[in-house]
């Protein structure tokens, strides 16, 4: 007779480290995959951040002190490539992976195994690109925009760059399809599209951009590889090709890419500001329509990167670029109106969200200015452009990412990050960021070209460059404070409540961290903020019950 031994919960043996490792490596749980995205993305962030410090150290003074010109070219190329394609986009995908299924009340993503594949392609992509440093001739050195003909003439590191980006492109397309199907198909009962949480809307809009724009750069990369290695002539004017074709293909993807990198951050900030203002988001419908309008318009603006080529229709691309500032402006007014007369709480998520609003405003206004062809002719390829892209992608997206990290860390890890260290992190990052990148506007106006390893001492650029270098190291200190905060917090016991902030959306209706199956039970969904509705209904009932 067979005897079944029932183990009591307390006696279940702890899984061995090897078992736990295999479980992580083979997981298809969207939450674990989200966490893997975070670890991978922040590892890339550290590598690309060190590259930034190397560049700033080199540029602090005239002369070549630390990096040769060739090494500098490789470092700035990989800094931009890694930050854009393998830090910002994947870390936003990590938030999407972890929180979209929770926000819509789903058990997992629509295609869990495809989800795992999407993630695992990314570390392979990063290592492929970085392995260029071991190749003959070094890593890719044509800038993150990889313009031809320089990119056709580079060594094997360029091929590794192309291969790495192809992998990242496939990963992002598969991930985007997964997000769209998950959102369209697996929403909780009662969650209509106009009750979808705003971060999930942002992820949906981002995913549409990825599905429609990323294949275009994939095609461009195939053409570039074929020109380099197979003898085709897509970009060779001497044999019927066209150098500007690369710029068209790259920017047809590249400008929607900017919105791929910012939409999810807008979504996060649009979640955080209402929670820390104690009010629902002002103009939910307006925000959703703005996201969709920006998504559509982003396909009509690519050639504003090509004004100086003399081969594009200046008024058309100038006007479409200016048009996109209208829905973007709507977002700002919605955020401000949400805060108006609110009970503001200045916890770290809100500090970073406010930092985002202020810094992204500057980055956005820089962009409006550059949409004018006359202005663009003067500042094209100067440090002004470097300032602009960093005010958008660091002042905007990275501040948004940090807001999201502080906001959702308790949900992911069951532990609250230190408020004090979070405040130190914010102020150091805010000061360091402005110290680094604001002077770059002035350097651009004074004519300093981007992507140079050295400059003459008599150009009047030295002081501003030194200031930017000091700022870069202050940013480095801010990141160390964040790292210490994470390490110290992870060593503490799990004690975060299910809803530490008074959240609005469904992820706050489950434990911190959530169980493997996400929810024990779902509250009814009657708006885009079901947890807020339930809390206010409970408060109203309690007040009504009082004599």
């Amino acid at each position, binding site marked *: 007779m067979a005897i079944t031994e029932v183990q009591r919960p307390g006696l279940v043996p702890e899984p061995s480290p090897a078992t736990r490792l295999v479980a992580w490596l083979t997981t298809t749980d969207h939450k674990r995959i989200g966490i893997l995205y975070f670890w991978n993305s922040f590892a890339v962030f550290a590598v690309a951040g060190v590259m930034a410090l190397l560049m700033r150290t080199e540029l602090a003074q005239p002369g070549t002190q630390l990096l040769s010109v060739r090494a500098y070219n490789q470092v700035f190329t990989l800094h931009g490539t890694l930050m854009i394609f393998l830090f910002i986009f994947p870390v936003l995908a990590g938030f999407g992976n972890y929180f979209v299924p929770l926000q819509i009340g*789903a*058990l*997992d993503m*629509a*295609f869990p195994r495809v989800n795992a594949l999407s993630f695992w392609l990314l570390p392979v992509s990063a290592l492929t690109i970085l392995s260029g440093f071991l190749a003959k001739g070094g890593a890719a050195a044509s800038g993150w925009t990889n313009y031809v003909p320089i990119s056709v003439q580079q060594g094997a590191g360029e091929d590794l760059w192309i291969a790495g980006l192809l992998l990242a492109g496939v990963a992002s*397309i598969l991930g*985007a*399809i*997964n997000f*769209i*199907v998950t959102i*369209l*198909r*697996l*929403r*909780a*009962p*009662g969650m209509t599209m106009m009750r979808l949480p705003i971060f999930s809307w942002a992820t949906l809009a981002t995913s549409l951009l990825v*599905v*429609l*724009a*990323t*294949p*275009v750069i*994939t*095609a*461009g990369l*195939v*053409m570039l590889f*074929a*020109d380099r290695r*197979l*003898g*085709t*002539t*897509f970009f060779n004017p001497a*044999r*019927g*090709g*066209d150098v500007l*074709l690369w710029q*068209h*293909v790259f920017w*047809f993807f590249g400008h929607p890419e900017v919105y791929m990198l910012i939409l999810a951050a807008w979504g996060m900030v649009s979640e955080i500001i209402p929670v820390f203002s104690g009010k629902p988001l002002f103009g939910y419908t307006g925000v959703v329509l703005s996201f969709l309008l920006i998504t559509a318009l982003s396909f009509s603006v690519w050639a504003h990167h090509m004004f100086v080529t003399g081969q594009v229709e200046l008024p058309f691309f100038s006007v479409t670029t200016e048009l996109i500032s209208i829905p973007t402006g709507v977002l700002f007014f919605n955020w401000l109106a949400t805060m108006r007369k609110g009970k503001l709480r200045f916890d770290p998520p809100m500090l970073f969200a406010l930092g985002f609003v202020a810094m992204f405003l500057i980055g956005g206004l820089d962009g409006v200015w550059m949409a004018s062809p006359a202005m663009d002719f003067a500042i094209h390829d100067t440090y002004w452009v470097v300032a602009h892209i960093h005010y958008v992608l660091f002042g905007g997206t990275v501040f948004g990412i940090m807001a999201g990290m502080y906001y959702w860390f308790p949900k992911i890890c069951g532990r609250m990050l230190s408020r004090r260290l979070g405040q130190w992190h914010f102020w150091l990052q805010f000061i360091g960021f402005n110290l680094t990148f604001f002077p770059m506007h002035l350097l651009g106006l004074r004519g300093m070209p981007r992507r140079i390893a050295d400059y003459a001492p008599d150009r009047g650029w030295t002081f501003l460059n030194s200031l930017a270098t000091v700022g870069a190291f202050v940013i480095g200190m801010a990141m160390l404070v964040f790292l210490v905060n994470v390490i110290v917090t992870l060593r503490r016991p799990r004690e975060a409540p*299910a*809803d530490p902030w008074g959240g609005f959306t469904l992820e706050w*209706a*489950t434990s911190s961290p959530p169980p493997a*199956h996400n*929810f*024990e*039970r*779902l*509250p*009814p969904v009657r708006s885009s903020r079901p*947890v807020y509705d*339930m809390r206010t209904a*409970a408060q109203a009932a309690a007040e009504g019950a009082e004599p």
Partner: protein
Amino acid sequence: MSGTAIPIRSGEERAVAGTSSSVLGMVLFVASESMFFAAFFGAYVNTYVNQKVWPPNNTPAPPLSLATAAVASLVLSGLLLQGAFRAARRGLPGTVSRWLVLTLAAAVASVVLTLVSYAEVGFGLHAGIFASLFYLMTGLGLAHVAGGVVLLALVVVQSLTGRLALVRYQPVQAAAVYWNFVVVLGLVIYVVFYVLTNTGG
């Protein structure tokens, strides 16, 4: 969290009604593939408008015969798959299998004919921009047809082992979405590279 709770059900059951996840996923995949080829067609148009003679550089037009047979076979496979699709909607597993096997045969024939047709082409990959466009676009188109053949073969195996009916023929629908895309792509590539160049377009 207490309150009026809605019990959890499994993913597919609680999903919004309508197209299945696998079919919707395939529609989105085809949308991304369309943009991939749109970039190549954009490159084609960009080149075409900048040339006085087409094909440029004295490049001969690719011959029509085998390419026509290949594209005809591809279109035939698309029609046969419609037969499988209709049989699936009527719930006839044996009929579905027969239509699917015929579809696969026509698809394989198309791949073989396309590969053989390259032997007739009178220029190599290095012959300038038209050759670049021709070989990359027809080659990538062929790669997509070959990928579709693998997909069809998997569906045929599922059909012959009886698994297809168990999953409500969703793989047939998903495969049909992809295969219809491949058929249209093959037709457009045929018209652009073979018909127009041979008729002075």
